[in-house]
């Protein structure tokens, strides 16, 4: 990574750290959710953007992570921070297991299978035999964690920093993974499935692992989200959660790490602005933006930024030396 990129990221992180002190509590909560979504989008992007497996059902892993955190905290009294690794582990396994039969499904059919999963999810979560654990239709309420060591910040701010720390960790891990052998294998499989196989890449293993890791990321996001919202209920995990994630990666930019951030900001803040117009407006806007981006800007915001930067640097290089 170039020195300039490192500098840029450092500035962004510094700004991110300063934010909770200059904005309202509610805004801080919204930013926390934006961070949560960015982790989820990173997960989905790994699977769909980098590895070419279309998932319309990532809301399911988000839900599993959320319920894992809620159940551990509510029924077993676990501290909030300990639920994150568990959510990660559970979703890693769940994703890998789902990835195995998914190996037999290509493109459209995988989209269909994951779509089916997402649509039936609320019903599955409401199943009365699971009620003792899941709290049924009412769901589970959890308490907002207090800042540790009596730090002079409020709970919202603490949660923001906690989420930020987890997000930074997840992003660094992802960056490492994607530019290494695994990342190259993922992209090779997406672009030229048969050639990748012929080259000796164990496509089945890579694809299933990618599913697992992608689910893990979204599950971690789900756990963090549950803690931030302090509430899980079946109807909050309907098909539109999965669709919202899809919107996020398309707008943000497929196969791009920064895209996860742009997309997360989009899906978190656009509904806030649009809600004022009408309850239906946010989704209408999502839909129109989806169409617009597919037709006009298929590389998403990240792609547009990349092109703009390239054009600016080219101009700088082409400055005639007088």
């Amino acid at each position: 990574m170039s020195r300039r990129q490192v500098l840029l990221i450092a500035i962004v992180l510094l700004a991110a750290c300063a934010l909770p002190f200059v904005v309202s509590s509610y805004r801080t909560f919204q930013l926390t959710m934006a961070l949560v979504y960015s982790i989820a989008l990173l997960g989905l992007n790994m699977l769909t953007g980098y590895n070419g497996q279309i998932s319309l059902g990532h809301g399911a892993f988000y839900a599993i992570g959320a319920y894992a955190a809620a159940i551990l905290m509510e029924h077993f009294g676990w501290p909030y921070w300990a639920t994150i690794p568990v959510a990660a582990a559970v979703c890693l396994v769940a994703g890998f297991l789902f990835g195995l039969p998914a190996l037999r499904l290509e493109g459209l059919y995988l989209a269909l299978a994951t779509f089916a999963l997402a649509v039936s999810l609320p019903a599955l979560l409401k199943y009365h035999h699971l009620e003792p654990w899941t709290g049924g239709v009412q769901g589970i309420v959890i308490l907002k964690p207090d800042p540790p060591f009596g730090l002079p910040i409020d709970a919202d701010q603490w949660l923001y920093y906690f989420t930020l720390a987890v997000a930074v960790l997840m992003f660094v891990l992802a960056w490492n993974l994607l530019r290494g052998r695994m990342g190259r294998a993922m992209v090779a499989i997406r672009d030229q499935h048969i050639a990748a196989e012929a080259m000796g890449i164990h496509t089945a293993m890579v694809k299933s692992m990618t599913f697992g890791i992608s689910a893990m990321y979204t599950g971690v996001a789900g756990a963090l989200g549950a803690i931030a919202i302090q509430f899980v209920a079946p109807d909050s995990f309907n098909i539109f959660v999965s669709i919202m994630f899809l919107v996020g990666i398309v707008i943000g930019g497929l196969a791009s790490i920064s895209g996860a951030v742009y997309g997360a900001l989009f899906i978190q803040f656009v509904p806030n602005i649009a809600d004022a117009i009408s309850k239906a407006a946010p989704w209408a806007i999502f839909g129109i933006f989806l169409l617009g981006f597919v037709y006009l800007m298929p590389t998403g915001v990240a792609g547009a930024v990349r092109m703009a930067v390239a054009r600016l640097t080219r101009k700088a290089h082409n400055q005639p030396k007088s």
Partner: protein
Amino acid sequence: MEALLHQVLAGLATGGIYASLALALVMIYQATHLVNFAQGEMAMFATYFAWSLINAGMPYWPAFLLTVVFAFVLGVVIERVIIRPVENAPVLAVVVVFIALLVILNSVTGWIFSYTIKTFPSPFPAEPIFGNYITSHGGGAIGVTLVVLLLLYLFFRFTPLGLALRAAAQNPDSARLVGIRVGWMLALGWGLAAAIGGVAGMMVAPIVFLDPNMMGGVLLYAFAAALVGGIDNPAGAVFGGFLVGVLENVLGAFVIGNELKLAVALVLIIGVLVVKPSGFFGKVLVTRV
């Protein structure tokens, strides 16, 4: 025994609705090799159109017919304007466009009509007429489904336009060589599929009540039905629809409880896709390396 017969007949009634929607899905799949994720929302939108007409005072059957025409036009317009630009685009782009369509239709409906649940009238009498085994609406829905299927069959088998549609779907290059305007055939196919979907929506609305999200579950059952029958086989879709309807009702009433009925669709979908993707009657696709 009587309870079982009850459930089977009720299952056939909803099965007819699933069969119609599944048929719409298969028609579009045959012509484009694409799965229309927005088929349910298109049907729902048409049903709301019908509701507006009826609410404004129009009698049922004229509103029904006008809605079928409206749905047809909607399908044609959507194909020409929204789908055509991405006809040959990569799968992900197409899926995203379908999802966008789903989302736009759903939210626009909510915007115009609000999310409060509405009742939708049935053209059939309220009292059961076939003894106590099935509601009149159930029997009527089966009847309407059969009429629609018959009309479609006659159209495809015996009219030149139907033949041209089949040809364009099977072999667009050769179709062009005999002068068929393949682009318009595609639009026609979408129009017909949308019209069938509209009929399905109007048949299901009296049962599940009218709300923007009413077709979600129905769409899932229709997917299951289409896959079970073979995603490229119209007759299979119809068979699949009735089968799924009966399974849903019988399993829901006697085996797994009503809550998990939707899980039946999920299991069928994943099961068929993983074990036998070509379903009962579909063609097995062999991909050449």
